[in-house]
């Protein structure tokens, strides 16, 4: 287990307007790792998918809270956990299949988990029917200074 260098916890009600709020909060916290614009966009998109899943699926037709825990771990790792106490997922493996959705009438593409898995280094999902779902994601941030140093190194060769 890596050392936690910094941590922030946020509790948001499951209103769709909070999808943007969650993205802004996560962006503000992630900025301290000096991410590239691309890394930041990846994190924002993954978080948006996880929070939207909690609102659309976890708390479908009901209201509840979404807890977001963000951490900076030693080794430039950005860690985020999005947890709800909603209906839970019966078959996590099935839910993570691309294009699988239980909300097609709302034009959900069924790609939330595919986006999270593609844009983050690791995604794990724990869920219990009737109790809720917890999505944990990690991404190693190659800070801009390192990217710049790499580019300068490339130029020399």
């Amino acid at each position: 287990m890596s050392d936690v260098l910094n941590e922030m916890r946020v509790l948001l009600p499951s209103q769709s307007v909070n999808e943007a709020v969650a993205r802004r909060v996560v962006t503000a916290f992630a900025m301290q790792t000096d991410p590239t614009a691309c890394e930041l966009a990846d994190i924002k998109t993954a978080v948006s998918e996880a929070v939207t899943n909690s609102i659309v699926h976890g708390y479908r037709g009901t209201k509840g809270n979404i807890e977001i825990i963000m951490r900076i771990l030693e080794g430039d790792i950005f860690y985020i956990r999005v947890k709800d106490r909603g209906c839970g997922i019966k078959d996590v493996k099935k839910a993570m299949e691309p294009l699988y959705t239980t909300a097609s009438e709302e034009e959900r593409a069924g790609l939330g988990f595919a986006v999270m898995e593609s844009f983050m280094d690791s995604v794990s999902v724990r869920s219990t029917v009737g109790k809720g779902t917890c999505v944990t994601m990690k991404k190693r941030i190659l800070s801009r200074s390192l990217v710049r140093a790499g580019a300068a190194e490339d130029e020399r060769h």
Partner: protein
Amino acid sequence: MGVRIEAEESTVKAFLDGEIDHHCAPLIRSEIDTAVDDKHPEALIMDFGDVTFMDSSGIGLVMGRYRLMKSIGGRVCLQNTPAHIKKVMRLAGMDRFTNFI
């Protein structure tokens, strides 16, 4: 987030701006569908030049408009797509059934 619609004879252009997520997608959908129902265009052009963020809700939005345009014998074109949004679209294989211009 908003959408500005420009309708020409056989084309409806939808200029999207700001952030596209699950919260604001229904409003954009409704504005575009109203214009398409009204004009029955041959092409719907969705312009992403001023879009600063899009998650998979945007994929649902484009896929839905693709189905709508297909039902009236038309097509969907996507233009001025920023790199990160293209990344989300490619993940969904959207380059297979819409035109990037």
